[in-house]
């Protein structure tokens, strides 16, 4: 899958479509859109909510050239070397021939080790059935020739799904002509979800997290 973040408008439609398609319970998500504001507007760090709006007094400082909102759809990266497959004690996590990483619901014992080892935090426990679940690119749709629900519903066409090995597919063409990035490359998981126009701040889970003071001197720059 290739996600063109230049086209993403942050409408969360993929999130809602996924909930509807898979009947994902409350509190857990197979895909979500991480939203982050960044800019040089000094009071921005004190805002708790986007509509908590002190910049109405000085609107010229809170506009586009000084700040922007970044979106990042975050889903299972369908790694080429998935750590969840490596550490699963019963081989319930496996990779299909087309590269989609799956969980066998009849074999999973719910030991949570894959969740602890996943660097992307995409696995969750279904609170109703007690099964470990994650995004599987909607295999039931893909097998019948349809697109995944999130790709189908994306209004701007930011998400592109296809066969990477087929040179005529749109995914392969985008990958060959655009500059793509993956999330957490240093984890050596070789993800198969590629992002065009990924920003380093929105890709960093520690940005915006409550820190312990060590980095403050570096963050000024």
């Amino acid at each position, binding site marked *: 899958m290739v996600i063109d973040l230049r086209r993403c408008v942050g409408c969360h439609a993929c999130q809602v479509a996924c909930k509807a398609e898979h009947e994902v319970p409350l509190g*857990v*998500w197979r895909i*979500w*859109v*991480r*939203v*982050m*504001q*960044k*800019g*040089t507007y*000094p009071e*921005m*760090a004190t*805002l708790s*909510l*986007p509509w908590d709006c002190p910049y109405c007094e000085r609107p010229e400082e809170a506009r586009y050239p000084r700040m922007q*909102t970044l979106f990042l759809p*975050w889903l299972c990266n369908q790694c080429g070397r998935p*750590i969840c497959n*490596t*550490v*699963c*004690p*019963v*081989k*319930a996590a496996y990779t299909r021939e087309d590269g989609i990483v799956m969980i066998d619901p009849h*074999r*999973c*014992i*719910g*030991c*949570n*080790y894959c*969740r*602890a*080892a996943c*660097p*992307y*935090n*995409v*696995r*969750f*426990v279904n609170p109703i059935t*007690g*099964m*470990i679940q994650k995004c599987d690119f909607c295999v039931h749709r893909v097998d019948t020739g349809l697109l995944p629900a999130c790709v189908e519903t994306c209004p701007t066409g930011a998400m592109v799904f296809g066969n990477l090995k087929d040179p005529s597919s749109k995914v392969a063409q985008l990958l060959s002509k655009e500059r793509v990035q993956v999330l957490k490359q*240093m*984890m050596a998981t070789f993800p198969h979800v590629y992002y065009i126009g990924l920003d380093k*701040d929105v890709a*960093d*889970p*520690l*940005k*915006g*997290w409550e*820190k*312990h003071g*060590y*980095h403050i001197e570096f963050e000024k720059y």
Partner: protein
Amino acid sequence: MEVQVLYNVFHHESVSMLIAIYFHIVGLHAGCSIVSITATLLGKSEYKPVAKIGAIFVIILFSISPIFLMADLFQPLRFWYLFIYFNPTSPLSWGTFILCAYPIFTGMYIYFLFKNNVKWSKIFGVISLPTAIGVHGYTGFVLGFAKARVLWNTAVMPSYFLASAMISGMAFMLIVALIRYRFTYQDKSPEEREKDLNIIDLLAKWMAGFMIMNVFYVFSDLTVMYYHTEDAFETVELVRIGKFGFLYIWVDNVFGNVVPALIILFKKTRKSHLLLLIAAILASIGVFIMRYVMVFGGQYVPLS
């Protein structure tokens, strides 16, 4: 540059308190059995009470430890899948088979130990020593192989876990030995009292040795993490001065390792049984806090 996260999703933490308790209990009985087997293999008759104290607690503690593992599973009735589907790259699979081999060999060892059959208890001691090390060593690998969390994914983790297991096992045995001495010394002859005191002294000295080793592991782990990635910075700050700083540095390392080690290293304080008891209790609390901080501190830094 100011940044602010407006929307994000965190899934709840994956390794629960049950696993922290399990790590502590499995460390306790692995430590007890390693001490017991070592005492038998050294073959001196005065170590025999140590071996027997250890052996009894191995039985008691081992019988409760798998309950925590089973209770942690989301599908507890499927636990037997672990035996039929073996994945050689998963430390949980190794642990399943070590956990099965360990009670068999250690049970034989304990049987021959109480039968006073020195030869066979030594033979089964040699066989069960690797399983006793493995039964706690594998938990270190379980955390070490979870590559998402920098606090766990270090090469020092298995040996660090083993060292702290030895401390907790020895502290537990020391407490029992002190209580036993306190309630039985009036009925004993001076030579027997001398033997008991020697055992207490020996246990305390070995515990102090493992404490110094543990402090060295903590020091090397934390300092190496300061020279590592951004996640590692945040994690090490978290366990040094952050939310877990008080628990990890003060309760675990200063009052759980350094203070008891000092109490034991000075000859005057080592002779006081009250101080020794306090040292052993502090060490037990410190090791439990270490498991807690490892499990929850490791998961505190967000991944998404």
